[in-house]
């Protein structure tokens, strides 16, 4: 099934603690995931399973996580290269791309999560 959500991206403490160590698996662990509340996450799979997040600007595979602070229809990915694979590049006349409030679709996938290097290699 495909879940339609509004995607936001942002800081977390683990993202911060690994930010100067972006080649590490800790960084991937800290940033390559998508949070939904347990009800919505449950409709896609078990926590830890993989999901594909698709927006008009790209798609990315990340790990599914539960966070019941999220209301229905809100998905959260920590800021970083995985999140930025799908954010809105339009700076809206003021220099700031759309890192929050992006309409997105999420579905379960068997695909693996790309390593940071592989993710960036897609842009070359």
């Amino acid at each position, binding site marked *: 099934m495909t879940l339609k959500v*509004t995607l*936001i991206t*942002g*800081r*977390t*403490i683990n993202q*911060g*603690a*690994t*930010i*100067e*160590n*972006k*080649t*590490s698996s800790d960084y991937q662990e800290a940033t390559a995931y998508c949070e939904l509340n347990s009800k919505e996450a449950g409709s896609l799979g078990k926590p830890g399973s993989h999901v594909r997040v698709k927006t008009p*600007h*790209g798609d990315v595979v990340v790990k599914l996580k539960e*966070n*019941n*602070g*999220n*209301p229905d229809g*809100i998905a*959260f990915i920590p*800021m*970083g*290269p995985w999140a*930025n*694979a*799908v*954010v*809105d*590049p*339009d*700076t*809206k*006349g*003021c*220099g*700031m*791309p*759309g*890192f*929050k*409030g992006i309409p997105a679709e999420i579905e379960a996938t068997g695909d693996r999560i790309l390593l*940071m*290097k592989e*993710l*960036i*290699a897609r*842009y*070359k």
Partner: protein
Amino acid sequence: MSNVITDALCPFCGCMCDDITVVVENNKIIEAKHACKIGAAKIMGHHRIKAPMMRKDKNADFKEVSYDEAINEAARMLANSKRPLMYGWASVLCEVHKKGILLAEELGAIIDNTATVCHGPSTLAVHEKGLPTSTLGQIKNRADVVVFWGSNPVHAHPRHMGRYSVFAKGFFSEKGRRGRKIIVVDVRKTETAGMADEYIQVQQGSDYLVISALRAILAGQAAVVPDTVGGVPKEQLVKLVDTLKAARFGAIFFGMGLTQSMSRYKNIDNAISLTTELNSFGKHVIMPMRGHYNVTGFGQVCAWETGYATAVDFARGAPYYNPGETAANDVLTRKETDAAMIIAGDAGAHFPANSVRHLAKIPVVQIDPYWNPTTEVANVVIPVAICGVEVEGTAYRMDGVSLRYRKMIEPTHPTDLEILEKITKRVIEIRGE
């Protein structure tokens, strides 16, 4: 040999905690007392890029080269550029910013800092409405109502609440947390929201409407406000206005929840007006929760040197400023940039894929201590010492208070300052040829 440095400053976030005790043994930091998880991770350090590296083909592996070789190539790439971009500057000291701006002038470059994807919109709002604010100590000593709007200090500024805003005790606030009402406004219930006295959940993207509704209620015009605004019931808004009006000293801290959502800087513009209007009742201040420790410092240096806080275009020899036109992602999205220097900021990780795709197509120089996604799209990589740990100098806290960082250990790499000076010298030579 062991050495203890007290009152050291943490070079991670805009809190710039200045009470860190660092224990050094044989030029290695073995302990960072009082630091939070994020700060300690930065201070304690980890894998560094060992030596300068270069490659022509971005799909090829890097080859280690000498600093002189890397500097020459960096200078050549930048000097040949018609539309160079110099981006980053968040995790270096003000002394480096000055050298960067001078090089931008020499090159006719655009210089922009990480605020462009962080609190850049806050600056745009300041152009519109000013900024009623104060130093953090005012809040610690006086605040009885504190609002976190679209900001999550538990994660992003872990010691903010303890040192300045929530638990801190002061002259007029001897009860600390017990004497303060904490309100969190956000689109999801964050850990910070979990600690608040009141949590107000706003529908994503509706902050602007909610702030306007609060202002209307404050102006005695509650009658025009609909029953629900941005997902918030009117009663809750009226109650919030009552709480704010009754405050002796109120403080609003805002974060990316406002700067990055729909309406962008207009959310902050509106929140600043709300703060100004609240000053008819009690004392109220508002402050952006600045991310990197010295992102504020770049804005300060850039403002006193160029008149503009960031996103300055030197193409025509005189500063020109217009985010939406001259900010990093504007020129990358338009594919105008034909060479880039990324320094002390990670465009590869923190810019939208669309911008990184363009960086992957043009010559890129990276100056940074660490291997990160920008390295993956770079042609020349110049590793440097870590400012604030291995290099002393100035930074500006989120409230604009400047402090001097101590050197904790001896650097193993040249400093950003030295590298920029050498690139500048070389650029002048090339241009003169």
